[in-house]
C-alpha cells in the first residue's frame, strides 16, 4: 500500500527553522510544506512590492530554503509553500539563486492567479455590504484563496519546489496528495479527507503540543525542542499523524481534537475552494506513542465561490503603555486613563476609535465578571485608530508625557505609531480566477 509522507515545515511567517531542517534531514518525507501567510501578510507584502518591484515575497524565503534544500534534494522531498505572497515569480527567482549557490539542480514553479485586485471592484465586502470599488485609493490588495489545481499542475510537470501566493492553507497539503494519488477533483470524500490532513498540519507545532501546555492540567514533555508534525497518508485519504522520534512535544487525542476545531466554524461545512469538507464525524484514535489515526472525514461539492481577502488602508494606530505598581496601582492607572481621554478630546473626530486598558486587570476580557483583588502591578495601555499619522503620534506622545505630568510612579513607557492595513472579505466566482504556473530550471553540472 502506498503511503505518502507529508510534513509541516512552518505554521506561520516567523516560525522556527530548525524543526523543518530536522524533517528535511531524517523525515523520509515525500513533501515538506511551509505555510507562512497570515490574513494581513499579503497586503503588507503588496505594499512592499509597490515600493520595490522585486520585493513582496516572504523575506525569510532564502533563509528557510538554504537550511532545508540540501536535505530535501538528497532525500527526494519536494517543497510546497505560499511564501510567494504578493510576488511568486520574484520568490522563484530568489529560490533559484539559493539553489545555484548551493550547487543543487531543481525545478521551481511559481503559481500565479490569486491576485484579483483588477477585478474586485464590483464585489461587495462582507463587513460593509458596499462594493470594494468604494474603497477608492485606500484599496491595497485583493487576493483570492485559490485551491490546489495550480499546485497540482506544477507538481505534475515535475516541480521540486512550488511557490504560490494566497492559496487556502489546507490546499497546500491537499495538492501533493491529489498529485501523488491521482484523486479526481470530484472525489469529494477523498478531497475532504485530504483537507483534514492539511488542516491538522498547517499550524505545525500547534498539533504537537504547542499552544497546548498548561502546567498541572496538560503537560507537554520537552517543549523547548518541540518537533513539527508529519502525516502518513493512505490512498483513501485517511492518515496517521505523528512527529519524529527524539523531538519534544506530544501528539495525542487531546492535541489533535484542539487542532481539529481550530479556526473552524460549522465542522460539517468547512468551506474550501476545492471541496466543502465535513469534519463532524472525524474519529481521533491513539494507536501508539505520539501516533494518532485520523479517520471519518468526508466532503461534498465545492461552492464554486472563492473567498477574497481585500486589504485596505484604515488609518493610523497610535499606542502607548506605562506601568504602575504597589497599593492603589489600579486607581492610579484609572486616573491616567481619565487624563488621556481629557487631553486627547482636542483631537475630536480625528480619533475614530480609542481604547484604554489596564493590563493585568481588564485588557483581555473587559466584559467578563471578575473578582476584586489586590494587584501588585498593572500596565496601562492606550490605543487609538486615527485618521492621520500626526494624530496617532499625538496619542503616543500623550502616553509618554504621563512620566512627568501623570500619576505617581509611572514607569517603563513604550509607544508605537504605524499605519493600519485592514482586511475585509468578499466572494468571487472561481471561474473568474484562472491559475497558471511558470517553471524555472536550475541545472548544476557535477564536476
Amino acid at each position, binding site marked *: 500500500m502506498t503511503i505518502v509522507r507529508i510534513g509541516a515545515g512552518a505554521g506561520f511567517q516567523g516560525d522556527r527553522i530548525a524543526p523543518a531542517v530536522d524533517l528535511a534531514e531524517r523525515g523520509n518525507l515525500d513533501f515538506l510544506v511551509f505555510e507562512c501567510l497570515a490574513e494581513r501578510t499579503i497586503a503588507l507584502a503588496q505594499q512592499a512590492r509597490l515600493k520595490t518591484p522585486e520585493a513582496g515575497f516572504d523575506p525569510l524565503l532564502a533563509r528557510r530554503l538554504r537550511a532545508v534544500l540540501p536535505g530535501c534534494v538528497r532525500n527526494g522531498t519536494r517543497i510546497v509553500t505560499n511564501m510567494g505572497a504578493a510576488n511568486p515569480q520574484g520568490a522563484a527567482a530568489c529560490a533559484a539563486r539559493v539553489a545555484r549557490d548551493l550547487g543543487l539542480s531543481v525545478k521551481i514553479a511559481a503559481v500565479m492567479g490569486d491576485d484579483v485586485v483588477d477585478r474586485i471592484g464590483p464585489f461587495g465586502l462582507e*463587513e460593509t455590504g458596499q462594493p470594494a470599488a468604494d474603497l477608492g485609493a485606500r484599496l491595497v490588495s485583493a487576493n483570492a484563496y485559490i485551491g490546489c489545481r495550480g499546485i497540482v499542475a506544477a507538481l505534475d510537470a515535475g516541480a521540486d519546489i512550488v511557490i504560490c501566493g494566497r492559496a487556502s492553507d489546507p490546499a497546500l497539503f491537499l495538492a501533493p496528495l491529489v498529485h501523488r494519488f491521482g484523486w479526481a477533483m470530484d472525489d469529494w470524500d477523498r478531497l475532504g479527507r485530504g483537507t483534514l490532513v492539511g488542516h491538522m498540519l498547517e499550524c505545525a507545532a500547534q498539533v504537537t503540543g504547542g499552544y*497546548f501546555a498548561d502546567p498541572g492540567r496538560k503537560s507537554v514533555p520537552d517543549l523547548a525542542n518541540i518537533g513539527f508534525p508529519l502525516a502518513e497518508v493512505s490512498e483513501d485519504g485517511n492518515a496517521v499523524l505523528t512527529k519524529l522520534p527524539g523531538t519534544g512535544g506530544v501528539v495525542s487525542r487531546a492535541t489533535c481534537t*484542539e487542532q*481539529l476545531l*481550530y479556526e473552524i466554524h*460549522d*465542522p460539517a461545512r468547512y468551506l474550501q475552494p476545492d471541496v466543502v469538507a465535513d469534519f463532524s464525524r*472525524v474519529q481521533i484514535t491513539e494507536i501508539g506513542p505520539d501516533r494518532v489515526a485520523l479517520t471519518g472525514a468526508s466532503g461534498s461539492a465545492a461552492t464554486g465561490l472563492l473567498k477574497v481577502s481585500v486589504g485596505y488602508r484604515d488609518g493610523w494606530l497610535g499606542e502607548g503603555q506605562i506601568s504602575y505598581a504597589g497599593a492603589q496601582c489600579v486607581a492610579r492607572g484609572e486616573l491616567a486613563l481619565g487624563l488621556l481621554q481629557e487631553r486627547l478630546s482636542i483631537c475630536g473626530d480625528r480619533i475614530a*476609535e480609542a481604547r484604554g486598558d489596564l493590563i493585568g486587570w481588564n485588557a483581555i476580557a473587559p466584559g467578563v465578571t471578575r473578582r476584586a483583588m489586590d494587584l501588585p502591578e498593572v500596565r496601562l495601555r492606550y490605543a487609538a*485608530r486615527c485618521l492621520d499619522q500626526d494624530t496617532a503620534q499625538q496619542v503616543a506622545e500623550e502616553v509618554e508625557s504621563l512620566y512627568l505630568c501623570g500619576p505617581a510612579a509611572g514607569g517603563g513607557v513604550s509607544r508605537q505609531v504605524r499605519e493600519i492595513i485592514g482586511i475585509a472579505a468578499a466572494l468571487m466566482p472561481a471561474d473568474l480566477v484562472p491559475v497558471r504556473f511558470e517553471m524555472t530550471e536550475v541545472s548544476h553540472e557535477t564536476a
Partner: protein
Amino acid sequence: MKLHELAHARTGDKGDISNISVIAYRAEDWPLLQERVTEARVAAYLGHADPAVVTRYVLPQLQAMNFVIRGALTGGVTRSLALDAHGKCLASVLLEMEV
C-alpha cells in the same frame, strides 16, 4: 466547579469571528458539559448582550463542542485595538466559568 476542571479549550479566529473549542477530559463528563455549557451561558459569561451571536456545534464522538462567536473581536485582528487582537486568550477566560 470551574469549567477547567472538566475540559480543555482552544481559541481560533477568522476576521471578526472567534471560535472556542471545549473538550471533555473524561468521556463521563460529556453529558454534564452538554447540559451546562450552553450558547446562552457562554454568551452571558463573555459579556455579549445578545445570545444569538453564539452558535454551538457538538461532536459527541470526541466529547467536544465548538462555540462560534460573531462580532467577538472588535473588528478582527487587522483593525482591532485590543491587546490580544486574535482573542487567543479567550479560551482561558471561558475555562474560568462556573459549571
